[in-house]
């Protein structure tokens, strides 16, 4: 039985897109359509009901051109044409939790004693939830839900590479030094699950084998990560710790197809 997927994303779509080229032969029943552009550009989609049926489309020629480069032709996203729409990252990420943690911590964190501001767990969760709800991912979910009941999955943005610690990025080294990575990730996952239930989408978590014991992405999966718009270039800079490579994309696709197996 064939399955039709629309994979939507910003720069983080590059990993599964590159991976797909290498593994598509292993999944003869899968049809994958990629739909991507920068986060800002994808924020300019609008819902339309026309001769083409209910769909999302760019509001400008510039965005249209960007989407066509990734999709290979069409600039329209018609959710009803697919068995599932899979969103990649789109601003829904752990960095939002880390950004709050830098300045505001609850007593549950080991680092509460060094927190600039102490907040309740309710308050921390509310702030995190607001940030995640404001992400482009949730905006797109809401747009799709206006016109379709299609299955929507959100593949969470990978945790940053473990190299971010070695290179001494302060917020992250503090998080690690305080021993709060695990609890912050639990808080983030819990918020993601709550939002997913409220907004009616499924969460695809990062494949466990891509993580090191401290909850960061193994550096192997970050090496030579490519940009989404291949015409624009090549690999991400060495000190880009958030974009992953085709190997990572392959792990994600394997997990995804397994999760959605009929």
């Amino acid at each position, binding site marked *: 039985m064939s399955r039709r997927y629309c994979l939507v994303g910003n720069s983080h779509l590059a990993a599964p897109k590159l991976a797909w080229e290498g593994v598509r032969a292993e999944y003869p029943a899968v049809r994958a359509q990629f739909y991507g552009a920068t986060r800002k550009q994808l924020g300019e989609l609008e819902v339309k009901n026309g001769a083409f049926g209910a769909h999302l489309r760019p509001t400008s020629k510039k965005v249209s051109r960007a989407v066509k480069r990734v999709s290979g032709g069409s600039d329209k996203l018609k959710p009803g044409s697919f068995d599932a729409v899979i969103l990649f990252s789109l601003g829904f990420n752990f960095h*939002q939790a880390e*950004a*709050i943690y830098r*300045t*505001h911590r609850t*007593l549950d964190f080991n680092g509460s004693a060094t927190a*600039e*501001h*102490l*907040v*309740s*767990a*309710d*308050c*921390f969760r*509310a*702030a*995190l*939830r*607001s*940030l995640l709800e*404001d992400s482009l991912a949730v905006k797109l979910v809401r747009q799709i839900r206006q016109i379709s009941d299609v299955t929507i999955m959100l593949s969470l943005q990978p945790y940053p590479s473990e190299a971010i610690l070695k290179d001494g990025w302060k917020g992250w080294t503090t998080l690690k030094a305080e021993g709060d990575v695990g609890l912050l990730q639990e808080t983030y996952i819990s918020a993601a699950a709550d939002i997913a239930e409220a907004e009616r989408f499924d969460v695809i978590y990062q494949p466990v084998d891509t993580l090191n014991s401290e909850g960061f992405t193994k550096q192997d999966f970050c090496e030579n990560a490519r940009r989404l718009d291949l015409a624009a270039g090549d690999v991400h800079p060495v000190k880009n710790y958030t974009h992953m490579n085709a190997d990572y994309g392959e792990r994600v696709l394997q997990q995804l197809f397994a999760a959605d197996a009929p």
Partner: protein
Amino acid sequence: MTKSANPYHGLPARSFWRTGVAAHKDRLIDEVYSAKFSISQSDNIATAGSCFAQHIARHMRASGFSVLDTEPAPKGLRGQQFGYNLYSARYGNIYHARQLRLLAEEAYGQFEPTGWVWQSDGAFYDAFRPTVEPQGLPSLDHIGRHRQHHLQKVRQLFSHMDVFVFTLGLTEAWLNQPQQYVVPTAPGVVASPENPDDFVFKNFRHAEIYADLQKFLEVVRAHNPAFKMILTVSPVPLVATAGPDHVLPATVYSKSVLRAAAGDLAADDPNVAYFPSYEIITGAQAGGRYFEPNLRSVTAEGVEHVMRHFFKAHPQPDAPARDGAGAVSTLAPDTSAEGEAEDDDVLCDEILNDAFLKPGGMRGRSDE
């Protein structure tokens, strides 16, 4: 026999009702307020008080003044949730002079209250700011550590502010008899104390309010000798009275006492000024038009009218520091930009008393 000079002869227009008030029905009232001291762009301003003070804080921020916020909201938090983005610290509404005085004393280690942890449905509440955590906190340890953290931020605020704008709101209070402190909501409204009988209704008198304000100045000046204070009185009537009188005379009594105490302190202390927001909203020249149909809430137009008078005497700095949100100096790393107030709503703990109004218009006691 020499005829003495008429003492009213030669007085300025502001001294006469006809020229000072009646002629200004639809305009700014000339010289209704003259700045006793100036506020510069670099002055650190702190705000506190009853819910009307939230308007003042917001307008000062929007106008580019450097308004302190020692307890900024975490990134992402919306509006005024969890008591953020209301005042210069997360103390919620401070309706009473006694509440302000004891906050300062507690912050500087001169007062240690007991019985301030209240409970509801197994959660713990800080009786001095019961609405900042809508679901309460999970343990005594949590509530104690959160209060200590808050007091540290209040101490930081009081020690660094240059100008403190405080709006007096109420004389009626719920007083803890053993320790003579007051709380902003009656026992049972949000949560309940361990010993409800410790709390009694109290209507503060002029002398008490004057003394509390003086003591506040004394406590803070020991750490920050140069700060100045601008007092205002909230024009918002009582939502309910727990005293024996009708709510209308109870309101007028309360506002009159507050007004007199503020005026006396401003007259006695060179570093205290009185700004007449109360008169601008409630005076005969306003004809009641600055109140919403409930005759209680002040309209946005009224607030703007008040602030125009304020900014006429205290010219606004040239430009807001940040995207119209105004300058928000935190004394700490700036993290508050995401949580600016979104609208003109003000949060009043006092309004909770309205829930006790019985059907048919009978007055309900707020401790029922």
